[in-house]
């Protein structure tokens, strides 16, 4: 494959603290993720997977090494430029949904549009786009509900609609089903599958092997390094079987 990877990291290092109490959260991590991949990142807590997600999401900067997103080096961007990347190119899905509590589902979904610096979205356009995004996750009839009036699974679907609204390059899902029961988990996973099938690139952190089975590729982290990085055979087989 000579294709330009969507995500490429070169010798990423992240250290916290100084001197004897220095912690190496990431040690020379080099990764390539292609457009359209569904990658699960696994590892125990403290393995560095959250740190990697923060850097991939442009919430944080590496101590050294490069992070190239869609051909652009984003390692040294300032807070303003990183905010713009997060707004346009990255859709976050968090374990605890992270919706604004006193704001309706529709307004939560429309929120990234308010902060779009390139977009000239009039309020009516924002409303229409947000409603379409809610429809895509099957919650158009809940548009005027507050998060507290929705179930956990529904809240997470609102969060996914919000992640999608600016048509980002990647979806970063951090334990997206961590707070959900089995039925709701399956619901969210099948929604992520749908997105993947429609060509979205998804990077998901999880520590449940069952869920990692849903991904095409599973990367294991340990002590800030990539321990294993393998293509998920079963999943690949299922996909090719489905294609036939």
């Amino acid at each position: 494959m000579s294709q330009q990877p969507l995500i490429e990291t070169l010798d990423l290092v992240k250290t916290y603290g100084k001197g004897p109490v220095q912690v190496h959260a990431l040690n020379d991590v080099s990764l390539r993720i292609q457009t359209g991949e569904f990658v699960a990142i696994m590892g125990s807590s403290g393995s560095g997977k959250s740190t990697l997600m923060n850097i991939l999401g442009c919430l944080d900067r590496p101590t050294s090494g490069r992070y190239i997103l869609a051909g652009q080096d984003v390692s040294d961007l300032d807070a303003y430029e990183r905010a713009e990347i997060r707004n346009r190119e990255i859709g976050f899905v968090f374990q605890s949904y992270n919706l604004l509590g006193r704001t309706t589902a529709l307004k939560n979904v429309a929120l990234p549009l308010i902060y779009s610096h390139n977009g000239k979205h009039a309020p009516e356009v924002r409303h229409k786009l947000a409603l379409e995004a809610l429809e895509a996750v099957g919650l158009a009839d809940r548009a005027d509900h507050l998060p507290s009036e929705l179930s956990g699974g529904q809240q997470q679907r609102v969060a996914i609609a919000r992640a999608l609204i600016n048509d980002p390059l990647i979806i970063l899902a951090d334990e997206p089903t961590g707070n959900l029961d089995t039925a709701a988990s399956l619901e969210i996973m099948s929604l992520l599958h749908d997105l993947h099938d429609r060509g979205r690139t998804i990077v998901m952190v999880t520590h449940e092997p069952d869920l990692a089975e849903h991904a095409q590729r599973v990367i294991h982290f340990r002590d800030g390094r990539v321990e294993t990085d393998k293509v998920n055979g079963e999943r690949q087989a299922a996909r090719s079987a489905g294609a036939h």
Partner: protein
Amino acid sequence: MKPLEILSVAWEGLLTNKLRTLLTMLGVIIGVGAVIMMLAVSAGAQAIVADQIKGLGTNLIFVTPNFTRGGPGGGGSNTFLTMDDVSAIEAQVPGVTGVSTERDASETVRAGSVNLSGVSIVGTTADYPTVRSVGIASGRFFTAQEVTRGTKVAVLGPSLAESLFGSSNPIGQMVLVGNAQLTVIGVTASKGTVGNVDYDSQLYTSLTVVNQRFLPSRLSRIFGSRVSTIFIKVADGTSMDQTIFQTQVLLAKAHNVSLTELPFNVQTQQDVIQTQTATTAAFRALLAWVAAVSLLVGGIGIMNIMLVSVTERTREIGIRQAIGATPTDVRLQFLTEALLLSLVGGALGALGGVGGAWALGRFGSFQTVIVPWSILLAFVSAAAVGIVFGYFPANSAAKLDPIQALRYE
């Protein structure tokens, strides 16, 4: 973000906790309202005094005890003005057309079946009409002799005469004032209300009658020969400065003190207005400080609540940052919230202040004049307070690390 969006996000932020928003605004509301009301009262007081002084007529000199130089109560008995001073000035100072003094009382007045309570009684001297520029419509004013003898006569203001006697001629009729029978000898020409004093509804009688009959206590009767303010009317074309100097010399001699130690103020109308203006200016300066302090307190209240709000909404800030809010977006959101707090507070305070000032003037015993620039001043200071005290919390919100903020519980 466009300005309208910033405004609507900030507005929603404030609406989510209405009670707290209102309590935070309270400091600004009270500060702004108090400034407007106090300025209205002080402007009203100044207007009354200026009106009263102007209503006294022109070419007037006032002699008043000087309290700061051991006036009544401080020095000996020679620090009081007396009736002797009144007659001495009239007799000895050249260019004087009239000298009068007054003592006021309030009594029930009865004539036939009509009974009026709380009528304002002015006990004065024969020169009152000249000094106060009050005309006589019918009959006559009392003479100096009648004052000295304490003859029981009364002159009525036109509306008082109307209330007591209707259309019949009051001259020669008897009125019962308190428990004194007085004969009506004249009615004054209409002068109207000047600076809170309704000249038309007063009853004028001699100072002697008031001293003997209407003063509240025995003690005041003993000191009845003392007078408070002496009014001197000067003839046109006479030098006021000359007359003032001559009056001072005369009083110094009569009270046996040197000219520099004279325990009386001898001033013209202009002097009194100037003194009054200076006093009001000092009063206003004091109010400005009180206002500044109350706005400062209001501003600290805003800062305090905004800091709490930033801490409490750390997670919200983190979410906004994660989906693309820049530090400027966050800073503007909180700064706008602070500005809205102070502006809405300022507007409510201005409404309250104007309403309060109006109510004080309408239902209270104050005259109030709402000063338009005080509203503007209060508003601008409220906005300034919002920006100054909102900046620090807004800045600390903008500097939050998104990862830490998202992790905040």
